[in-house]
């Protein structure tokens, strides 16, 4: 079996299995923990609205925090939006998702995807530099942060190399790209990348609890 067939076949298959198993394991392990009933008199019963509201509004900083968070937040926007464009806008990726889920939508011109890919890599590199140089981030960072960074940036770089045919034969580049995606999928449930799911749960939890109190979110 050649590398590409391995990547597209067993590697991808197992990565997806690990991804699904690990994600649900972690989510179930968190969500099925004890939940105490709240008997206090609610100020508002619109907790669902509070949850949805915070899920949306926490996407940007409150006005008062904007100045101090501008740089980090902007980097975050660039690579998050860049990743969305690359992952969900590039036609071969849509075809992959289609083959997996049956869902399909129109793709973006490849040139836009390449530019977003390049911007994403640039923003991720800047984010890493910031993580290494900012005292707060350096203090907080651990293996998970650096490894998650690596498994995030690798598929973007290998993907760009593959479309540019740089460094090796295309099928090798494609295989390496797919393998790097496998690594990303397999690691996602176990590290901080899990925030792709948890961000909704975490924001929603605070949004609901705080809406109940009428507290500030």
């Amino acid at each position, binding site marked *: 079996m050649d590398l590409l067939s391995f990547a597209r076949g067993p590697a991808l*298959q197992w990565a997806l299995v690990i991804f699904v198993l690990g994600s649900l394991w972690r989510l179930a392990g968190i969500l099925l923990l004890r939940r105490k009933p709240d008997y206090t008199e609610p100020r508002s019963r619109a907790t669902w609205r509070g949850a949805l509201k915070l899920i949306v509004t926490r996407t940007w900083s409150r006005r008062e925090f904007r100045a101090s968070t501008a740089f980090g937040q902007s980097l975050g926007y660039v690579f998050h939006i860049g990743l969305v464009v690359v992952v969900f806008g590039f036609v*071969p990726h849509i*075809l992959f998702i289609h083959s997996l889920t049956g869902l399909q939508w129109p793709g973006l011109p490849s040139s836009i995807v390449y530019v977003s890919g390049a911007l994403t890599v640039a923003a991720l590199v800047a984010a890493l530099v910031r993580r290494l140089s900012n005292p707060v981030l350096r203090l907080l960072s651990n293996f998970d942060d650096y490894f998650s960074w690596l498994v995030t940036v690798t598929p973007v770089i290998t993907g760009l190399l593959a479309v540019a045919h740089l460094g090796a034969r295309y099928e090798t580049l494609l295989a390496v790209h797919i393998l790097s995606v496998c690594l990303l999928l397999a690691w996602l449930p176990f590290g901080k990348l899990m925030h792709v799911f948890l961000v909704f749960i975490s924001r929603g939890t605070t949004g609901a609890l705080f809406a109940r109190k009428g507290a500030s979110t």
Partner: protein
Amino acid sequence: MNTQRDPTVLESFQQQGLSRRAFLKFCAATASLLALPAARAAELAEKLAGMPRPTVIYLSFQECTGCLESLTRSFQPTLESLIFNTISLAYNDTLQAAAGEAAEAAREDAMRKAWGKYVLIVDGAIPRPEDGAYCVIGGRSALDLLRHAAEGAAAVVAVGTCAAFGGIPYAAPNPTGAASVQDLVGDRPVINISGCPPIPEVITGTIVYFLGFGVPELDAQRRPTMFYGTTIHDRCYRRPFYDKGLFARSFDDEGARNGWCLYELGCKGPVTYNSCATMKWNDGTSFPIQSGHGCLGCSEPNFWDGGGFYRPLSSGLWHGGIGEGLGVAAVAGVAIGGAAAVAARQRQKRTTEAGKKPPEAP
């Protein structure tokens, strides 16, 4: 077909009533096809002019004769000019007039005479189990025939994907245990000319090159880089559509009519190394993508097991759905996660109970 007194290639041309200039022109055209520097055409002419026509043994095993069909449609050099002028085709069970015992005897005779010098062309895969019993010709297994013929060969040319990589006989579940030539011939130079079938000019061109200059530069799959150096995708005239993200989504939609990229329809051009996009077929008329169908990737190993010709390259490669496997993973994930949560709750409960018994910390 076998000549008595081993004329040189040039002499053979002249015997056919062709002049030296015709020979020079043949060499120039062949060199042009091979993309040789023009100066090397003269070198080729000089080499071929003085050398005796090499004996060629052409063995066919698990194959469909498609490769030979392709070969007969070579425009430059034509098969006629090749087998009448350039080589001495001592054995080919489809083209030769002789049959049965006589044919086998002729082959043995030719091989004995040119032992160590002849070129062996193999077409088709070779089944290995049961001493090769699944393919037997004239009472001898393909396995045995190949081993024996390869022993006396100067080089082995595997024509077609079956010979080069196992091809269709080798495809899962490979019921005959088919193997490729390079799997069986370890100690002789092997040149793979893959394709299902290969481009005819690639077959003839490689043979002529080999006669003039020996084994050409080969890629990792032992294919001549002069023909297999770039992907179909790299040289495809529809490439600009790929770059713009314009794809045909079915064979009769607007995109297909506009000649957009066929990636979504399963084209394997990006991972297929061959010259179809530049040399084309039928005397440069067209090639599959130009005719509106994606590349099948036939010149690559395992192309038959690539998950389907209409399955895009970026899709997963597995047989059947993965849904069941993921379903099991999902159920298992929830179950294990739930168990972990229950275990954690019990740890908490134990702590609470333990905390009640002993006196408070201070």
